[in-house]
């Protein structure tokens, strides 16, 4: 594997549950994800499928003891983040992995000037003088396309427009040179015209700063526009993953197919399609494949076993019995790379 495509983040078999008043919510059910250096991965799915939780879990931001990771590994450059202490994770956040959220106005502290907010994060992680921190802050502002001047520095969040606020968030997240940015619905709260600007900014950040990204979105169109690869999540697991063009042009999983058919494609409102049924209750999730109650291709085996990922094409993986059978795909272990100590899954590397 060349350095350019080295694995930056790898999530293996991540299982996570929440304690709630009604019982245990089995929120993540064996999530598998890989992000390479400088790559933009789209994490797509309906609300409540576990996209954001996956992002928060990577950063160790989930509230314990309510949220409990029951198994799995999150490897950052080969280091298991789940084995790290709180103090180690705190140092790593904002310096190695950063996250920006959906609502940029709510994400910025209303009572501090934005420049000071960025500067504080820089000083926190780099231990530099105020003067150096200020220079870094100006560079960060410039990198996200904001004027790197005193006027911008001294403004408060409410004095910016929505798109500019999201730029400020990104400047804050990337000021310390994080190689990985988790962007959770960064454009959802913005006007459509501004959305495109922010998506272009994500591409620009990758091109100029080589920032790898996980773009969490419910909008397949947004993912298609921006991402290299796409991972489709349903009810706590990744059901299909591959290069954007592959997955969207030749979707294999019935859920991906249905999701794709729900896109407007120039149809009128009456012609729009929906996926029948609703996202399952994760306190008592369906057995076997969690999508089977809504699936139009359900087979006998589906409620009885969880489908394992099979290779649909080069670097294109799908977890579905129907897809495996219909396409004559060979069932096999999920794609590597896998952690060296994971038993019995160490073959079939994608080219």
């Amino acid at each position: 594997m060349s350095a350019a495509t080295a694995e930056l983040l790898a999530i293996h078999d991540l299982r996570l549950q929440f304690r709630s008043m009604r019982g245990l919510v089995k929120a993540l059910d064996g999530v598998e994800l890989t992000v390479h250096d400088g790559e933009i991965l789209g994490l797509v799915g309906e609300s409540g499928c576990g996209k954001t939780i996956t992002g928060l879990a990577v950063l160790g931001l989930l509230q314990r003891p309510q949220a409990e990771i029951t198994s799995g590994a999150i490897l950052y450059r080969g280091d298991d983040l789940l084995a790290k202490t709180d103090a180690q994770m705190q140092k790593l956040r904002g310096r190695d992995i950063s996250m920006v959220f959906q609502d940029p106005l709510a994400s910025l502290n209303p009572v501090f000037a934005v420049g000071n907010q960025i500067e504080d994060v820089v000083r926190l992680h780099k231990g530099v003088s105020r003067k150096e921190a200020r220079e870094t802050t100006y560079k960060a502002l410039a990198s996200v396309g904001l004027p790197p001047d005193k006027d911008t520095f001294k403004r408060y969040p409410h004095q910016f427009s929505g798109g500019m606020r999201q730029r400020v968030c990104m400047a804050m997240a990337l000021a310390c040179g994080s190689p990985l940015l988790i962007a959770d619905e960064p454009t959802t709260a913005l006007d459509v015209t501004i959305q495109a600007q922010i998506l272009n900014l994500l591409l620009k950040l990758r091109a100029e700063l080589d920032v790898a990204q996980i773009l969490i979105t419910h909008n397949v169109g947004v993912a298609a526009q921006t991402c290299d690869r796409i991972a489709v999540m349903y009810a706590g697991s990744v059901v299909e993953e591959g290069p954007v063009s592959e997955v969207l042009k030749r979707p294999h999983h019935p859920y991906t197919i249905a999701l794709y058919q729900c896109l407007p494609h120039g149809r009128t409102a009456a012609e729009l399609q929906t996926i029948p049924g609703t996202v399952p209750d994760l306190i008592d999730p369906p057995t076997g494949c969690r999508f089977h109650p809504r699936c139009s291709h359900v087979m006998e085996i589906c409620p009885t076993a969880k489908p394992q990922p099979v290779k649909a094409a080069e670097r294109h993986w799908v977890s579905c019995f129907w897809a495996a059978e219909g396409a004559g795909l060979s069932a096999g272990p999920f794609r590597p790379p896998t952690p060296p100590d994971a038993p019995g899954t160490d073959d079939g590397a994608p080219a």
Partner: protein
Amino acid sequence: MTIWAYVVRRIALAVLVLFGVATITFLMVRIVPSDPAAVYVGSNARPEQIAQARRDLGLDKPLYVQYGIYMKNLVKGDWGDSLRTKRPVLNDIMHFLPTSLELIITALVVATIVGVIFGVTTAHRKGTWIDLVMRVFSTGGVSIPAFWLALMLQIAFFRVLHLLPVAGQSDIFVAQAHPITAITGMPVVDALITGNWPAFTDSARHLVLPMLCLAAYPMGVIMRMTRSSMLEAMGNDYIRMARALGVPPRTLLYKDALKNAFGPVLTVIGLTFAYSLTGTFFVELIFAWPGLGYYATTSILSMDYPAIMGVTIMVAAAYVLVNLAVDLAQAFLDPRIALS
């Protein structure tokens, strides 16, 4: 609107409020069924002496003329003479006010520090035993009457533990051996700046019990407000964002969250200051503290209307000034306030 326009507008508003207070005070005293002239000359005076006093005091003139004279003199700093002490009211007030302020300010400072720290801690440790213990403490502070708390403090620290003096502002022997040079009129402060250590220790020891007694209620209120305001602030997205960028928990609490949560707390501090201005009347009485409360109480009991009016206006002015300060501090704390 810039922040300075806001400051000017707030100050103008405060002046208007003070004008209103002076007017209402003037009218209230005229409504009370008591003859100030009779009080002035004493109980054995003949009717013509009372009539003479009425003319001397200007009480025979029409109400609007009296009002005009009163307001003019008020602005000039002539607040009339006390019927009881026969000294200018403003002099009396300036003599008694500093000792009260010493008590109130130290009480509020202690209440704010303890209240805010407890409030932040209970919000951070919500649902734990620390939260429970501190909340019982604050409920006690709010609900225990000052007079009962004063007695309990006196029994505990004077009679049982022999740690602190029971009442008064200084020990007579210390006061004679190390007299305090009056500069600000606040004994502890004056002793401190003149380097009079025996007197400083003595007045500080005398200050502790009345101060605790006066601080209990504000402390409880400030703590509760800090707790609820912090809980709200901690739930905000910017706290999650700051955590996602590696900001340590202590900074999150005391910087990112507290600056946002402090607005309502400041308002409450302003309100409890007003409470303390009158709350100190009881406390000064119980602890024989020679302050404004003591002066007000004796003036009320002797129907000394210029003194009562003077104290009322002084208390109202202090209240207005503190709330003005709170509003301005809020505007500097949260830049969005001056805009709305």
